[in-house]
């Protein structure tokens, strides 16, 4: 019966999962096709649906996958395998209708919920400047400072949030009987943490290889092996994606 269903590879994550800068540009069809998720789609003869976007947080990744399923999934006609590349747990987002335009910055996204534009994406390394021309955005810097205080002072809290997102998505997939694989592309959480370790046994490691081992995450594992492929924003190149794809294949594809 399943052979009559449309076979889909849903690929969610940040720019590392999107294959950004493989060809030197941030986002392109070539990059996505040669990312580890794109290679996995080709290898398994599945239609890739790319959801990955640059600079976003794990809460964005979680929400986008959930919304894709809420708006698109039909188990009668679709056979979905989901690849989730978790990003750095220190990233976060502010619920704020700031007028962002994710798609224009990530033109090769295949599906995008408009509500994702209602979040301002935060990283510790940069700050969105105040916009005094708009009263509601005139104090963005002070607002971000409150977020940065939590992100910077309590990295363990950020890891706990991301760990729960992973458990949430794991249970979601299992409740729908959807196949998936999760990987870390940057530092997500560490299962040696006092706060993660009591719950670490809840992770399905068969579906989340190297969960909680930051040194095994995509970027940190390959950045020294492939030192010459790092571009403007420290993304890895085609060889690293190919090797990570092989690693994932060996782990989950039988």
């Amino acid at each position, binding site marked *: 019966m399943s052979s009559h269903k449309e076979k889909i590879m849903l690929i969610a994550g940040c720019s590392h999962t999107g294959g950004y800068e493989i060809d030197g540009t941030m986002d392109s069809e070539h990059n996505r096709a040669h990312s580890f998720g794109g290679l996995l789609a080709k290898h398994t003869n599945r239609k890739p649906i790319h959801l990955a976007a640059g600079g976003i947080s794990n809460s964005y990744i979680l929400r986008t996958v959930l*919304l894709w399923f809420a708006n698109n999934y039909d188990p009668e006609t679709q056979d979905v395998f989901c690849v989730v590349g978790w990003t750095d747990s220190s990233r976060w987002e502010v*619920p704020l209708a700031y007028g962002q335009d994710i798609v224009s910055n990530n033109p090769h996204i295949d599906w995008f919920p408009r509500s994702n534009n209602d979040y301002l994406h935060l990283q510790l390394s940069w700050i969105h400047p105040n916009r005094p021309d708009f009263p509601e955005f005139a104090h963005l810097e002070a607002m971000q400072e409150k977020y940065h205080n939590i992100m910077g002072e*309590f990295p363990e809290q950020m890891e706990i949030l991301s760990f*729960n*997102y992973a458990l949430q998505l794991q249970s979601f997939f299992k409740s729908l009987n959807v196949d998936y694989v999760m990987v870390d592309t940057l530092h997500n959480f560490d299962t040696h943490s006092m706060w993660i370790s009591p*719950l670490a046994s809840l992770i399905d490691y068969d579906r989340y290889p190297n969960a909680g081992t930051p040194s095994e995450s995509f970027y940190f594992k390959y950045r020294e092996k492939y030192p010459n492929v790092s571009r403007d924003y420290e993304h890895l190149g085609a060889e690293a994606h190919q090797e990570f794809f092989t690693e994932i294949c060996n782990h989950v594809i039988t």
Partner: protein
Amino acid sequence: MGSEIDGTLDSHYNRSHSFAGQLIKSDRIFSDHKLVSICVGGVSNSFIVRNTLLWFDKNYDPDTTEVFVIVGWADSSRWESPVLDISDMKDDNPCAEWIAKENDDYLGISLVWTHPDREEFPEQGSIQKTYHEFITSFPEHMELISLNLALQLQWFFSSKQIPYIMTDTLYNVNSENPFVKPYINMIDQNRYINFGKPRDAFYYKYESMGYSNDDSKYYHHGEKAHLHYSQILEEHILKHNLL
């Protein structure tokens, strides 16, 4: 957990006369279920999820145990900060049937009170200040955190085919929050009674109906409110066949 039903914060009487304790006595629904009350006073929704997951991890055997879960969500403005060995939950909640020891490694954060400074832990004040600034500035974000915790537990239960019912006891998530709206259809509203309606949360519902508890110092309802709410839950479970 029925705090202050009998005037004390925690007692076996309170727990057995809480809405969950009353519900479990319903012979229209349950035959021989035993109450395992793992509620703890003053905690956040993240505590509730963690303690529930740890209970299942350490106690649940689907071959020998049939479990029905009643989850009463707390106020979404509560949070917690990971801090090693900062509290003694069991000491403060002596009648809880089970509390994971790992829960002692969190400092509970609530807007309505502040842990006083302690000589052995001088950072306590500044930690709470940072969290309080965040919580008061971004209530919509706190709702999103609690919404995701509810979804996490919902799918945990459904993936294991464990029947449950959820309800809000305080202000949790408001479905009018524009950032909540995209998620609303994901919630199984048969199993989450009055989702997104803060005025129907246990505490506010009975406050508006004029129920009072003369024995309460900390705004907890008495036995009558708990009994009435247990009857509402009972009817809801029967109507929607939630067992």
